[in-house]
């Protein structure tokens, strides 16, 4: 099977601190992939470098076989991105935001309008379509961001923490849309802290810790009979906190 994403020795440092220390991320085409890791593991930095938003200090990344930094036209036409945070054009309405995105990528206006209307309907944003994004709630912003990332029908979708701060109803809408998207042969890569969610959605998992990929492969192989949460804690060494620490916590001295 062809790889949708392949990086080799991707490296980034900020001053003395190494954020990503040579990441070899592989995601087969058509998979629903989860990138998991504790805070500060370098997930966001990695995704930013693969999507061309951040210049790596070393290594390279390929999407559908195209070099991210040498073939930007090919790569940018193929990817959809929902970066960390909710940075959108705040003073456009949801509909205008989608239209702007589509037309900036050369989709004719009529077609962009049709797709925008479809996406707004599916994302349950039809009522808020003509309100300014600045007044949207977190869940609405994630949904409009995902709609914008899907509008040009990318083959690989990068989502940084798409479910963070999203209510269960919106989260359900998001997963439905994403499942349909991968079922058609496209690839989704998303980063998350929520192991249950990754376990439920993904068929491919990459585990990052302190700038490295510590495990990668099909979900079943990575978790090897355990729950993903147990496997994850074992991989990143999350069981270090012994009982001797925090001994004061919860203790109430009688007066």
């Amino acid at each position, binding site marked *: 099977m062809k790889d949708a994403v392949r990086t080799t020795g991707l490296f980034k440092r*900020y*001053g003395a601190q190494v954020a990503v220390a040579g990441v070899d991320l592989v995601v087969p085409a058509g998979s629903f992939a989860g990138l998991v890791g504790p805070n500060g593991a370098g997930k966001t930095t990695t995704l930013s470098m693969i*999507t*061309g*938003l*951040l*210049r790596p200090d070393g290594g390279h990344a390929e999407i559908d076989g195209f070099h991210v930094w040498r073939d*930007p*036209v*090919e*790569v*940018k*036409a193929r*990817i959809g*991105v929902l*970066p960390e*945070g909710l*940075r*959108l*054009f*705040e*003073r*456009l*309405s949801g*509909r*205008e935001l989608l*239209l*702007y*995105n589509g*037309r*900036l*990528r*050369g989709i*004719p*206006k009529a077609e962009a309008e049709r797709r925008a209307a479809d996406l707004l309907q599916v994302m349950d944003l039809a009522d*808020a379509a*003509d*309100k*300014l994004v*600045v*007044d*949207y709630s977190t869940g609405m912003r994630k949904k409009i961001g995902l709609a*914008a990332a899907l509008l040009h029908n990318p083959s690989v979708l990068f989502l940084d923490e798409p479910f963070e701060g999203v209510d269960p109803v919106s989260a359900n809408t998001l997963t439905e849309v994403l499942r349909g998207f991968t079922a058609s042969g496209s690839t989704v890569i998303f980063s998350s802290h929520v192991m249950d969610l990754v376990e439920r959605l993904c068929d491919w998992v990459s585990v990052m810790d302190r700038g490295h990929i510590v495990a990668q492969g099909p979900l079943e192989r990575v978790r090897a009979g355990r729950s993903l949460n147990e496997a994850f804690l074992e991989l990143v060494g999350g069981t270090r906190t012994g009982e001797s620490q925090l001994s004061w916590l919860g203790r109430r001295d009688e007066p």
Partner: protein
Amino acid sequence: MTTVRLFAELKLRLLAGNLRGDLERKLGFVFTLVVAVLAAGAGFFLMGLIRLAPPDVAADLVIVLFTLFLLAWTTLPLMAFGLDDTLDPARLALFPLPTSRLAVGMFTASATGVWPAASLIVTVGALVALASGIGGFLIGTLAVLLQFALCLVASRLVTTSLSGALRSRRGRDVLAVAAIGAVLLFQLPNLLLNRDMGDPVALLHGAAQVLRWTPSGLAAHAIADGGWAGLAELAAVALVVVAAAWLWIKSLNRALVTTDASNPAASVRRDSGLVDRLLPDGPLAAVVTKELKYMRREPRYRVVWFSAVVLTAVLAISFGGDGPSGPAVPIALTAFGGLLVTMQLCNAFGIDGRSLWMNAVAIGSERGLSVDLAGRHLAGAIVGIPILVAVAVVTGVLTGGAGGIVWAVLTGLGVLGIGLGVGAVTSVVIPYTVPERLNAFTGAAPGQGGQAFASSMGAMAGVVLLSLPLLVPMLFGLLWVCALAPFYGLAAEVLGRRLAARIGFARMPEILAAVSKPV
């Protein structure tokens, strides 16, 4: 005392934290520091010079200045609200601090910093200006400290009582546009000075007569008086400070327990606009439509455009009345208007800021970036050209040089084109973050003041330099070169845009990082 130290340290740490790991920020901070030291030194020196004036004039001057300080202290932090975490009571709401300690702490935090220190030094200059004798200096020192405390407490009182409104989106929008008021306020003295207002000393005396009874006026007068009357005046000022502090603590109490008022979202119209229907469908039309919408809806755009218009109008009116007649004035003013309009676009990606990634992931080639810039330029021209025509017509009619109107418009178009071309280059070479909320001190994120300064100075120098081939022949009376100006401008725009697209596409990630600084 521990609270004082804690909050002073907190503020200093926040200042230091803003600088960490970024050479540009450090340079920017050094720049701010140098400017503040210069301002403090010069302010102190000028205050000291007041001593050379006749005693009554000196007292009047200090009274007016003290009142202006108080006014500045109460209004300017309002513009800067949100840039300084130590000043927003909501940030501290969850800590178990009694209100009095919180008040002491926030008072300390607002007194700590480069600009408060500079302002205190300038205020101390009043001692040099007015005080005489040991008693005078003692009372004067007390008066200066009281005036400083009054400024701090008054500024805290205003920001705290408005903090609820300032946190809501609409409140911030309104306040951002209110920044225009500040711009106007600073232009007002210019206008007054240009119009003959009679004897300036009498004017000063009249103002001081009234302002003398304001708290800051009392403090200033007390320094000059230096006797028992001065002491009584200081007692009154101290009372005002205590009263303001009490009111502040009350409003602080309220601000800590009142939640943000949410505002219902309004819908926008769905029509796509005339421009969009006229332009051929494609990325260019998309960018132009978006930019025009942003100019209408984004308060920061409204502020910069409105102030450009106001500044040009002020100049037009002040020169129009009694300047030299003939085509020179309309031509010069329209050219200057063109410069001001294009200054708005010398950091084209700044207002997009953190949302620029949407363009970055869509634009895959130099051509794409060039189209993006062209869209921004077209939108700027659609708004800017009518302004320039209006300036040309108004100044032409006012100076009786109606014959110069056509020449003026042509020159204005030329300068506009040059400015857009130069602005495109500065946008990609020296990009910087425009804060969500404009404030009166700087148009850049903390630590990026230096870039903002370099960007606008560079753009201005570039425009002036490239305008020389037009301006020099005109100075020798060869007006026909005006006819070439629009073509020259267009060429400059195209070349500048191409160059910018080439440089900018290669350093898109760097531009993205520069305009997405946290503010």
